[in-house]
């Protein structure tokens, strides 16, 4: 009974941890707008968590600069399983306009398995919510596959 309850709940209460890996701040603002009254992602149970220990979904923005890379990997490592990694905006996926710069180490998928990519510069809040919702479903699948 509890197993089923836990699986159900995993999809309904995803907490986000947001990592800024050298972003221009555009995506960061857009991510916050997702929580505003207009879009209100909290109705799906989304909540911004302060610490990676509390998170289910890691949202990475920015082109993963050389400086931020070890920190990003470290913080992602600290998230307890089951977890999902979502890249937001084009930067972490391709490097966007920063591609090829000496200081950019991206894309993120070179280092960790990325579950959901939300493309756009910046993605619209609707797209972000859609991506995050997809991530919750992946999260639920991961929980089902998780062996205790």
């Amino acid at each position: 009974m509890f197993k089923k309850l836990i699986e159900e709940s995993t999809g309904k209460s995803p907490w986000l941890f947001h990592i800024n890996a050298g972003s221009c701040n555009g995506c960061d603002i857009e991510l916050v707008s997702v929580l505003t009254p207009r879009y209100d992602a909290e109705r799906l149970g989304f909540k911004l968590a302060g610490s990676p220990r509390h998170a289910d979904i890691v949202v990475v923005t920015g082109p993963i600069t050389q400086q931020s890379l070890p920190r990003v990997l470290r913080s992602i490592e600290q998230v307890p399983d089951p977890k999902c990694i979502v890249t937001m905006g084009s930067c972490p996926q391709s490097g966007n306009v920063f591609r090829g710069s000496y200081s950019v180490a991206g894309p993120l998928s070179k280092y960790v398995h990325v579950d959901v990519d939300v493309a756009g510069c910046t993605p619209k809040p609707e797209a972000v919510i859609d991506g995050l919702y997809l991530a919750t479903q992946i999260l639920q699948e991961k929980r089902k596959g998780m062996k205790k």
Partner: protein
Amino acid sequence: MNFLNPQHFPIFAIMLYFLGAFLIVLFGKNRAARNCIAFLATGLALTLMILLVKPIMIDGGIIAYWMGSRVPAGGYAIGIALEVDALGLFFGLLIATAVFVSCLYSFSYMSEDDNEPQYYTLFLMLCGGVMGLVLSGDLFNMFIMVEILTFAAVALTAFRNRVTGALEAAFKYLVVGCIGSTCILAGTIILYQQAHTLNLAQLATIIPLCKGTNVSIAFALLFIGFCTKAFIVPFHPLAADAHGAAPAPVSVLISGVLTKSGIYGIIRLAYFLFQTMNLGTMQFWLVFLGSVSMFVCVTMALAQHDFKRLLAFHSISQIGYVLTAIGLATALGASAGLYHAMNHTLFKGLLFLTAGAVLHETGTTDLGKLGGLSKKMPHTTVLFLIGAASISGIPPFNGFASKWLIYQAAYEKAAETGNIGFAFVTIVALVTSTLTLASFVKVTQSVFFGQLPKECENAKEVSFGMRFAMGILAVLCTVTGLFPNLVQTYLTGPAAKTLFHVTRYINAMLGEGYAESAMGASAPEAATRTIEIVGVWNPVNWLALLMIALLAICIVAIASKYDAVRENKSEKVEAKYSLFYGGEDTVFSQVGGGDLFWGFKHNWRHYFSFMHDLHSGIVNDYSLWAVIALALAMVYALIVL
């Protein structure tokens, strides 16, 4: 002469300590002999005290013992007398227990020091002094014992004279302690000149008959003298310095034993010698000083950076509780005060010993340099937590039981007299208790939890002997907290009752009917005050409920694999189990102990800077405080007594 007659036990207890001190000087070179003598002296004294519980506490007897059988003749008590009533025995028990545990602890703690024989000699001298003080039946012998214990304590404070500040602390203590002793001597002289006797019982009879300026001044002198021994505000800086420098077992003696001697002296003064004069007016003075000590010292403790100095200030703060409760002059207040005095000895001893253990292992007590010791010293941590929970009044430990009684007593007094001032005393007491918790949170965080600095990596658990000594106190802390009713019935209740039976005390010493005939109508009637408690607190039931709940929750937790995913630490995922620093590498970033309560301190910054300026650390200033306090006490005594 029948040595097993309880009549002789008090004098034996005193003699054992002094005899031990003497023997250690003779045979102390040998470690085994030294330890054996110290153990026997303290152990036997404790046994004697415990044996006296039956005749005195339970049967309600009073032992009056005239040295060399020089019983009073011609109406004047000339001989040297011991008089042990429930109050004296209560303090005797406390002292004997603290001394015994402290002695056990010393065996391993002091084993690396030089001059061990001298240490034990002074140690036993101090114990003998305090024991003599509380069992003594005349004022002059009280003074003698005060002198002995003061000098032994001064020498012990400076015992580790290689430690920075030890000599300075001893010097300060010597100066202000001597001011105190002088006050006691002066007060004794004035009383002798007035009453022509030094016997406590007889003084209690005669003083009411010769009211006047001289007697009032004598009261002020004696009172301030004993205040210096109890380190009541404004004498608290001495305690901080002395505790900071002295070895841990000596700190136990200073806080658990020496301050009790001061409290004992104050009780004897207020309730016995001068009770028949005017107890009500003394009340304000006692409660005021107690509340001020309580609050000032706890705020001072919050500002400390050193483990032992912090404990020292807390020691005075708790003494403030005792003084306040005793000053309330109700049966409940007196009983609560004595209860707290007992608890103070137990938990403060425990805390000082854990501080000693930390010092022993790491070589420092600076809160900024310590941290993370809980993984290295798990037993010490548990013992410390018990002590900390006790002193900050977390149920079900003993500190809570007695503090709770003190709140009840203060608020009942407020309701009874309709005086809102006592309600504020209750509030101060309650808030002080939380402040105490705050500063122990600070110690817990910066000594036992938090990050482990490199300097402390070699720390390990202390030896069994030390843990055993601490364990005894921890168990006593828990037991006295869980069974407050038993403590009330068998220990504090009888002791508190004697406070209101002065006539009985006098008659036990000088013969039945003496008080009535000498004092006539002014003899205080033996008021049978009953202890009335408004509130309810049943620690055993609460603990049982808590255990049921905890057990149930634990079962649920374990069944649902609460900690199923344990740290399967392979080196690869090291990052996963390291701390979260906002993504940064783990850098050493201890949160400083001194500034932990910034939010509180910021609002009180003017107060703290005022206190900071006031505590200059200069002995001249402290002597001046002593003189001012004496002057105020005299003015007060002259006006109201």
